[in-house]
């Protein structure tokens, strides 16, 4: 029989944890942060494994994307620091869609842009690729136009991008409406030239009102980037969707998500139910899971997962997770 003095318990704790951690450190296994490298699929880094914790510079380095292409395609201010993490952008940067509605920047935008840019032919993204740090983007991602913009080799685009002409305006605007895109009068371009650098970085925006900065010239659906007020905790609260009274920007973006069926590779807040049905998740399954009647709640196949979440009083992420789990891989 060996008695254990209670004073020795801290020593045992110290030994157990100290030795285990020490050995793992010596062997190089210990890591409290993810190595900033996406998983490798068929010898290439998987763009759909890009995480919100990656910085802009890391993404560009890993995938060999020139800064001008990356910044232009995603509408980032040219003087934005390369160490800015993608999930920080989600809080600070908004685009404005064709109707003048602000749209969140999304990590998934980056993933799809990179995938298109490098010509990714690997497997489609899974839920694990996107869950957790994805954006709440509800419109077509900014990267969608990449197919018609520059290539890694700087080739001319295959189609003429219907570039949104954005006037450079660094004057503080009183409302979000003022940040709506200018009329689509700019000449089309066949090159992937990046947009002129904005004069104000997001982080340096001093005024609480949104400021319009140029959108990328090479993106047919490009829309202005609106900087969120510095002192804003949540962009959701500050930038409530605002209708575009002038109808400016019509035709530049496509606010109807159902027309973007081909772009939906994973469930997101803006994914229409019609797409979800095609993934094998039926209306009945959704009604049963979220205990609502679609007819009663006015949900149609054009409604989005976000609409469903709102109607069911659930978190959008819960709805997405459910769809991810049930969809035919």
């Amino acid at each position: 029989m060996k008695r254990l003095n209670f004073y020795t318990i801290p020593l045992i704790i110290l030994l157990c944890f100290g030795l285990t951690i020490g050995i793992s450190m010596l062997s190089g296994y210990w890591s409290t942060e993810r190595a900033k490298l996406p998983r490798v699929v068929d010898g290439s880094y998987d763009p759909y494994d890009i995480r919100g914790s990656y910085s802009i510079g890391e993404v560009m380095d890993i995938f060999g994307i020139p800064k001008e292409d990356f910044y232009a395609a995603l509408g980032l201010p040219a003087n934005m620091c390369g160490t800015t993490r993608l999930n920080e952008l989600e809080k600070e940067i908004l685009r404005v869609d064709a109707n003048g509605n602000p749209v969140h920047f999304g990590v998934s935008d980056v993933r799809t842009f990179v995938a298109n840019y490098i010509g990714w032919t690997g497997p489609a993204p899974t839920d694990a690729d996107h869950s957790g740090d994805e954006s709440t983007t509800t419109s077509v991602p900014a990267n969608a136009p990449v197919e018609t913009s520059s290539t890694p080799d700087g080739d001319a685009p295959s189609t003429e991008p219907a570039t949104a002409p954005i006037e450079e305006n660094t004057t503080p605007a009183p409302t979000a409406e003022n940040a709506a895109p200018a009329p689509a009068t700019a000449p089309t371009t066949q090159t992937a030239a990046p947009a002129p650098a904005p004069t104000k970085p997001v982080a340096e925006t001093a005024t609480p009102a949104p400021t319009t900065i140029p959108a990328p010239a090479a993106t047919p659906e490009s829309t202005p980037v609106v900087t969120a007020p510095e002192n804003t905790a949540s962009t959701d609260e500050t930038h409530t969707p605002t209708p575009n009274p002038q109808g400016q920007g019509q035709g530049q973006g496509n606010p109807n998500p159902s027309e973007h069926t081909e772009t939906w590779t994973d469930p997101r807040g803006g994914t229409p139910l019609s797409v979800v049905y095609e993934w094998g998740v039926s209306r009945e399954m959704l009604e049963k899971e979220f205990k609502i009647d679609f007819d009663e709640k006015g949900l149609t196949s054009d409604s989005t997962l976000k609409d469903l979440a709102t109607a069911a009083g659930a978190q959008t992420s819960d709805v997405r997770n459910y769809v991810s789990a049930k969809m035919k891989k």
Partner: protein
Amino acid sequence: MKSQKVRLAVQIFFLILITVFAVNHQLGERGQAFLPTNPNLHSICPMGGVATLYTMITGDTLVKKVHESSVVLMWASLILALILGAAFCGWICPFGTIQEWIGKLGKKIFGKRHNHFISDKMRNILKYMRYVVLVILLYQTAQLGKLAFESWDPYHTLFAIVSDELSILAYVILAVTLLASLFEERAWCKFACPLGAINGLFNKVSIFKIHRNKSQCIDCGACDRSCPMSINVQHQDKVTDSLCTRCGKCVTACPAKSSTLEYQIGKFSEVSK
């Protein structure tokens, strides 16, 4: 009582450690981290290692937000459990520490009624809920490839309370958990903690256990009354209940001879009688 002061010191140390990491991580989200490393809360919790076991075995990856450190800490806590039983819960876990302190407040408010709002029978049934929670979490995490409990884990909510990633549900669960600790000591640990469920299993096989020397016991019941987990120590030869956190309060409370209740290897021999 000195042994309880040692335990308190260890608890405070780990509470401060985790708080520092949590604050650092929150500041790190804003680019203001003050430590050279910026681990998230999941990467310094052994439960992350448990949750990712399935994806580690079936694939070659860890679930989102879980890092190798979680796996290492899981092994460390399992080794500790093999030696001491669920001492991790009673000596290290900062969430358990917070509940324990709230429990002290509850004791002042409710007096002797504190920790006796639930019958022993009901408590013995409810403690198995931990295993239900554990199975559900492991299944969901395996299905989703992400931490299924991330959105409502009260430990995570408590230490990331200013995070804008938390849902209302997370705050509600944290509030309910802490409020419940006023009535029932370590309510979360007793009825819902999946890590405690695993650690508790080791109480039956750990090298050191708390043994009772029947020949010296005066059956005063002080050990029972002092046990925060409401274990019936007085009528056991050794404490193997899965709820035991190895806090040692029963040992400290024992008014009989010093060798009546001991944390030791093996049974009391005739010599010790």
